[in-house]
């Protein structure tokens, strides 16, 4: 595996933490983008181990590569059907005492990716995302 793409299997997020940093360095990603990519991957993968595999352990496959003007990721697992997009949004207005952290991870993913797809196929959860290297310039009015 070269640092400019990742195609690997892991049994804990910790297994690929350094590889993600190496990937960001290999593509000279700006700090903000590198932060977003780290966050999206951590939240996705930690959620799979927690929900898809219900904390009982399992294997997650991660593919990460640059595709044109975007970083494209595919995360696959054989855990319980789990659509990360279906998670309830967090209550961002709650005060300190009633505030919970649940749901924040998916909220981060939604905020930071440009595309977010999920499908259940052949007993596997397949989650795909894309993060554009340059924010899309939308034509004004």
């Amino acid at each position: 595996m070269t640092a400019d793409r990742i195609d690997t299997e892991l049994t804990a997020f910790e297994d690929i933490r350094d590889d993600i940093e190496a990937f960001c360095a290999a593509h000279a990603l700006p700090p903000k983008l590198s932060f977003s990519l780290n966050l999206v991957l951590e939240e996705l993968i930690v959620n799979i181990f927690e929900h898809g595999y219900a904390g009982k352990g399992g294997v997650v496959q991660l593919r990460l590569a640059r595709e044109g003007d975007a970083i494209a990721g595919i995360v696959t697992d054989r855990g319980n059907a789990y659509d990360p997009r279906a998670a309830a949004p967090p209550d961002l207005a709650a005060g300190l005492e009633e505030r919970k952290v649940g749901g924040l991870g998916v909220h981060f993913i939604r905020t930071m990716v440009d595309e977010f797809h999920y499908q259940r196929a052949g007993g596997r959860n397949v989650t795909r995302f894309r993060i554009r290297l340059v924010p899309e310039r939308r034509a004004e009015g």
Partner: protein
Amino acid sequence: MTITITTEDVGPALVVALDGRLDSTNAKSLEEELMPLIGARNAVVLDFEKLTYISSAGLRTILLTGKRLRGNAGVLALCNLPPSIREVFEISGFLSIFQVHDNRAAAVEAVSAR
């Protein structure tokens, strides 16, 4: 890379500086290290100047620290948030539940002047 903490007493305040990345692999151990240090104290500042990364697992630890201080009838203040960390706090709605200061002196003053 993981996370290390350095503590300092400034007047009545306990200042804890975080150095490194706070994620799902070390958030729990930081919590276990931090809670006994806080004990019954009611004025705590977390200095994020050298914090390079935080995920929702890390935010959970910050939230628990804030709740602990509230339980002690005290206050937690945060300072020196690097831009990416500040953005995560903003997206989380955490900027409205924590006192955030530009520098350590302002944070120490805010938790001490009570």
